[in-house]
């Protein structure tokens, strides 16, 4: 299950009438939105949106009924258990030979402000200017110690660019910390603090 689906399911389950509707769905073979709405004293649109949301997620199926002048849907429960299962490895930034071999250096006139630790061997935070004109704002990003050591060894503007792997080696950052390093590189690239060569 990915984050958007989990978020949608979570938002449906968080409704204060969710438990009541599920109770009806479990005990009724099939139920319509108007039956749910009148049973629970809800607005019909509220019930309709909730049931349609569950149907999109595959928790309910719907069958079209053409009894009266206007056809309508009846909803049937398809799953007796609802499990939210998110594999966080999906969003893990896996280092590949290609992205570790990317050559980078600080961009000239990047305008970023670096705060150095008292020990003068790593950067504790970086302040970046975002937006333009009146909407210009300073955004301060606190770094982890490995990120700070990595940034400390980032080549200067105009200096020979180094690969991410080389900078990590110079900074003494272990290879298994590369996901957070790659995350930092992506952020710095987004705000044009670094340039890729």
């Amino acid at each position: 299950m990915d984050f958007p689906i989990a978020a949608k399911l979570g938002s449906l389950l968080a409704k204060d009438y969710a438990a009541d509707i599920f109770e009806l769905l479990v005990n009724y073979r099939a139920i319509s939105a108007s039956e749910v709405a009148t049973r629970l004293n809800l607005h019909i649109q509220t019930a309709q949106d909730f049931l349609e949301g569950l149907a999109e997620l595959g928790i309910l199926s719907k069958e079209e009924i053409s009894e009266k002048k206007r056809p309508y849907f009846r909803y049937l429960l398809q799953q007796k258990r609802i499990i939210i299962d998110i594999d966080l490895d999906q969003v893990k930034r896996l280092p590949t030979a290609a992205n570790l071999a990317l050559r980078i250096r600080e961009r000239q006139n990047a305008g970023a402000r670096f705060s150095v630790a008292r020990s003068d061997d790593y950067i504790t935070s970086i302040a970046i200017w975002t937006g333009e004109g009146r909407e210009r704002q300073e955004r301060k990003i606190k770094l982890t110690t490995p990120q700070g050591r990595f940034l400390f060894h980032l080549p200067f503007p105009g200096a020979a660019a180094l690969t991410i792997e080389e900078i990590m080696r110079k900074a003494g950052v272990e290879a298994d910390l590369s996901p957070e390093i790659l995350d930092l590189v992506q952020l710095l690239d987004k705000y044009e603090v670094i340039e890729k060569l």
Partner: protein
Amino acid sequence: MSQNRKLRPDRSINGIIPFLSILFLFGLGTLIFGVPIGLKILAGGFWIFAAYSLYIFFRTGNIGHMLVGAYDVFVGAMMYVAAGYVPGRWPPSREWALAWIAGIVFFGAFLIYLAATKKIKWRGREIFELAGEAVSETGNGYTPRPRPVGKIGFNKPEILSFARFCSRHLVAVAYASPRQVSLVPVKMGDEYTFMFRGIASNPEVTWISFDFDGEVVVHISHKDYLDYAEPLAFDKLCESLGLLFIEFAELHQRGEGVRVIDRLDSLKMSYFS
């Protein structure tokens, strides 16, 4: 040694502003309150300089500044005594005149010696000039980030000894912390405001840091970078400055600290720059 300087010519008058200020206050005091008060103001000014010079002596261990302090105390005392002679008893007694001449000759000889041998000269400009000498590429690339330069195989006592050497010879002011020593080159004229700053590692100051694991890091301030006549390749400049201090540390460690002074003197910079 080539006279093609990398730094812009030194046109700063910061160094003489304190003296001109005292002179101005002397003139103003004399005009408003009379000569005796003017002379006492002058005496007070010299005593303030004496306090400053003695502070430098205690802060750096530079003996020359102790002599300058003693000279300032002497002149201040003589001015104070002279103030007593002005209303009606001028010229001063023969004893005052002899003391004045003897003192001026005594201190004058030492001060001329100290100035000629640059023993009381702040060496900041020489440091930056030597660092710039090794850099031929231009291209700017300024960044406020510090730059790691490399590692030296010195232990803590050796690094502290080098720091004391730099301090004593006014090569750089040393700021020690539990993990490292930061050396800050000070240019002539900047010493009056500079010496009262507490912390070296701030972005407006150029510093060279030696941590006690031997890691050397350099930071050049934007103001000092702009003092170069051309936009030198910043990465190379930082590296050059760091390597310069590493070289100085190695010379000192071998007992050849005098070669560091020779290197600075070889630039033949004016005492006032």
